[in-house]
């Protein structure tokens, strides 16, 4: 999906002077979010392969970098990353449904809301389990 869904055939149907391909609403915003999360995940993957490569250097070096993942700020960023991956995965399934399922295009809007809802529902317990230890450590009820 290289061009935004809802792309118009001619510039003159656009309300914006000069013409634009971007028409807003569910189709465009899910596409924007797919791009943003995709780029974000790609840059994280770069960093993640480098940090994991430290297992080849020494256990201490690897443990030191993994310890930064356990700090409160980075732990919170992991929640954001997990949410971004989950959105990108589910919206990718939506894109495939639009491409390969005959009723996909008709239900793309409903599927957008389904994706957002599932991400929200999964991230509630997900956030709890990912931050549980950090929150307990910060407020002093864990060892």
């Amino acid at each position: 999906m290289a061009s935004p869904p809802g792309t118009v055939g001619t510039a003159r149907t656009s309300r914006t002077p000069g013409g634009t391909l971007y028409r807003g609403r569910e189709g465009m915003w899910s596409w924007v979010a797919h791009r943003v999360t995709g780029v974000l995940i790609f840059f994280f993957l770069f960093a993640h392969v480098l940090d994991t490569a430290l297992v080849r250097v020494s256990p201490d070096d690897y443990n030191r970098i993994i310890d930064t993942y356990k700090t409160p700020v980075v732990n919170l960023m992991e929640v954001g990353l997990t949410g971004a991956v989950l959105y990108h995965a589910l919206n990718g399934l939506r894109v495939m449904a639009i491409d390969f399922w005959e009723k996909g295009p008709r239900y793309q809007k409903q599927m957008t809301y389904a994706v957002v809802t599932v991400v929200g529902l999964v991230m509630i317990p997900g956030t709890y389990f990912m931050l549980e230890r950090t929150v307990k450590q910060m407020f002093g009820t864990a060892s």
Partner: protein
Amino acid sequence: MTTVAPGPSTAQAAPERLVLDAPRTRRRSPSRSGTNFEMYSWIFMRMSGLLLVVLVLGHLLIMNVLDGGVHRINFSFVAGRWASPFWRTWDLLQLWLAELHGTNGLRTVINDYAERDGTRFWLKMLLYTSAVLVLMLGTLVIFTFDPSI
């Protein structure tokens, strides 16, 4: 693909107004090289994406959520996982599919937003260089991991 029409005129000077080809207009001459790279890339994004849904969400669930999540990860945890060929294969497949999927995605993004030919070319060279580096390094690490280092 881009915000301007893929025509011979658009590569040089950006038009004042948006000019779009009619739907299903052939791009330039049909199939210059005989293969259809963009079609295979389109299919690859969907096939790899489907596998990555399982691989990456599984990876995140195990590493970040279950049984204490990231707090239990350290060198010996990795050594324990990579003692099993199953998880090495999982990680190797995940590495290659994710890196190629991401590189192809960023290639599309660069093609869409970098308007000058030179900018587009060098950004993609940087992208491909980083992809080769990540794939080689990651593969090397998975194949040569030594738990008694």
